C-alpha cells in the first residue's frame, strides 16, 4: 500500500508540474469565461448559457487532460525506461498501475476543482445567486473522466500513446451515445443490429447515465437514485479495466 501511495504522490507531482497542463487549464478558463459573451447575446438566458457553455467547456478540457495525460503516463515510463528503475525494486505491476491511476485522479481532481470554482463564481455573478448544482455537475464529469482515464491507461499498456488517446476519446463519445443507440436499434426490430448495439452497450461505459448537465439547466428532472447506482457501476467498471491493464502489464518485458 505504501508503494501505491509513493507512486501516486510521484505521479501527482510529475503531472501537476507539467507546463502543458498549465497551458490547457488557462485555455479552459478562457473558454469558460467565453460563456459571459455568449450569455450577453442570448436575450435573457444569460445564466443558463453560462452554465451550459461552462459545463461543456469543463467536460471538453477535462477530457483533453484525461486522455493525453493518462495515455502518456504508462507509455512514457516504458519509452523513457524509468520502468527499469521501478521494477528492479520490489514493486509489483499492480501497485504501479494502481499508483499511476491514483496520482492521475488527484491531478484531475485539482484541475476540475479549479475549473468548477471559476465557473461557480461566474454563474453567481451572472445569475446573482450561487448554484450548487454546477459543482455537482462537475463532480459527475469527474466520475465520467475516471472511467475514461482507466480505459486510456488500459489502451496505453497495449500500444502507443497516440493510439491510446484516440481510443480514449472514441470511448468517451461512444459512452455518451451507447444508451441512445441501443434504444434506437430496439425500435428497428433488427436482431443483428440490436445484438451488436447491446454488446457495445455492455463493453463501453455508459457515461450518459451520470450526465446531469441537462438537469442543471432545467431541461430534465434528475433521478438521483438511478444516478447513484450508475455511479457505482462506473466505479466498478474502473476497477475491472484497471485489473485488466495490470494483467496485460504483468506479461510485458522491458
Amino acid at each position, binding site marked *: 500500500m505504501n508503494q501505491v501511495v*509513493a507512486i501516486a504522490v510521484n505521479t501527482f507531482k510529475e503531472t501537476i508540474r507539467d507546463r502543458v497542463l498549465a497551458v490547457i487549464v488557462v485555455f479552459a478558463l478562457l473558454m469558460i469565461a467565453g460563456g459571459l459573451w455568449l450569455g450577453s447575446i442570448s436575450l435573457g438566458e444569460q445564466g443558463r448559457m453560462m452554465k451550459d457553455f461552462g459545463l461543456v467547456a469543463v467536460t471538453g478540457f477535462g477530457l483533453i487532460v484525461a486522455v493525453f495525460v493518462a495515455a502518456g503516463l504508462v507509455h512514457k515510463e516504458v519509452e*523513457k525506461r*524509468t520502468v527499469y528503475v521501478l521494477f528492479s525494486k520490489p514493486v509489483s505491476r499492480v501497485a504501479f498501475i494502481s499508483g499511476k491511476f491514483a496520482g492521475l485522479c488527484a491531478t484531475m481532481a485539482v484541475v476540475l476543482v479549479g475549473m468548477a470554482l471559476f465557473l461557480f463564481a461566474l454563474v453567481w455573478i451572472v445569475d446573482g445567486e450561487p448554484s450548487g448544482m454546477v459543482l455537482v455537475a462537475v463532480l459527475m464529469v469527474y466520475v465520467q473522466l475516471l472511467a475514461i482515464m482507466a480505459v486510456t491507461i488500459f489502451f496505453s499498456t497495449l500500444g502507443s500513446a497516440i493510439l491510446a488517446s484516440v481510443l480514449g476519446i472514441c470511448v468517451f463519445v461512444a459512452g455518451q451515445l451507447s444508451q441512445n443507440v441501443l434504444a434506437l436499434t430496439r425500435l428497428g426490430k433488427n436482431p443483428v443490429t440490436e445484438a451488436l448495439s447491446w454488446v457495445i452497450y455492455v463493453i463501453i461505459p455508459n457515461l450518459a447515465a451520470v450526465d446531469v448537465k441537462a438537469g442543471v439547466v432545467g431541461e430534465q428532472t434528475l433521478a438521483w437514485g438511478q444516478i447513484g447506482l450508475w455511479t457505482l457501476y462506473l466505479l466498478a467498471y474502473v476497477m475491472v479495466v484497471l485489473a485488466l491493464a495490470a494483467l496485460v502489464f504483468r506479461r510485458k518485458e522491458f
Partner: protein
Amino acid sequence: MAKAGQAIGSGSASGAQSGPAVLVSGLHKTVAVGFRRRKVEILKGVDLVVHHNEVFGLLGPNGAGKTTTVKIALGLMRPTAGTVRLGVEGLGRVGYLPENPYFYDYLSGQEFLDFCARLFGLDGDVRRERVEQLLRDVGLEAAARVHLRKYSKGMLQRVGIAQALVNDPELVLLDEPMTGLDPVGRVEVKRIIERLHERGKTVMFNSHILSDVHELCSRIAIMRGGRVVWQGAVAEALDEVPSLEDFFMKVVTA
C-alpha cells in the same frame, strides 16, 4: 536464494549467503523482432558465477548480451530457458543502475531519491538521513532541489547511482556506471565502488572502459554473441598479455 522469472525474494536468511551472489546457468533468451516476428536468439546459454564481496566486471562488445543477462536477473525480462539465482533475499537487497538512465523531469534529485526510498518502505528519519547521505556521496548536495530535467548527463548518472544504493543493497548491478561522467565524476564513482567493496558488498558492472575494470575488478567475464567466452581472475588474464585491452581483443576476435 532468489531465482529470476520465479519468486524473487523467497530465499531464507541462512540460504542467502551460502551460494554465490549471482549464479547464471544455461541462460537462453529468444525474442521476436520486426513485423514478421522473426525469432532472434540473443542469449545462447550463458553460465556465470559472481561470488559474494567481489567486484565483478561483465565485459563484451555491443550486442553481446550483457544488459539482457542483467535484466533477466532482475526480472525485467523472462528467460526462454535456464536460471538466474541471486544470493540475496529478493530485490529488496539489490541495487540497479540502468544504462543511460532517464528519470522524472519534474522531480528534484532529493524528491526522486525520497521516492525510491519509499518504494523500499524506508520510514521517516531513516529515509531522510539516507537520502542526504547519498546526495553528499555522489556530490549532488548543491543540486538537491533542482528539477532533474535541468541535470547534465553526468549529474543524472550520479543520481542514478544514488538511487541504486538507497536501500543499502548487498548486491549492486551497475550498467555502464562511468558513461557520461567527466574525469572527476569517474573518480568519484570508482571511490563509491571501492567503498561498497570495503563494506562487504558485491558489485557487478558492465563497462567498455577497460582501465576502470582493471583498476576495480577482481574477476571478469567476457561475453560475445550471447555466450560467456571467458571468465576468471583479472590477474589470470594478465598472465598471458600485458594489458586487459589486449586480452579483451584476443578473446572477442578469437
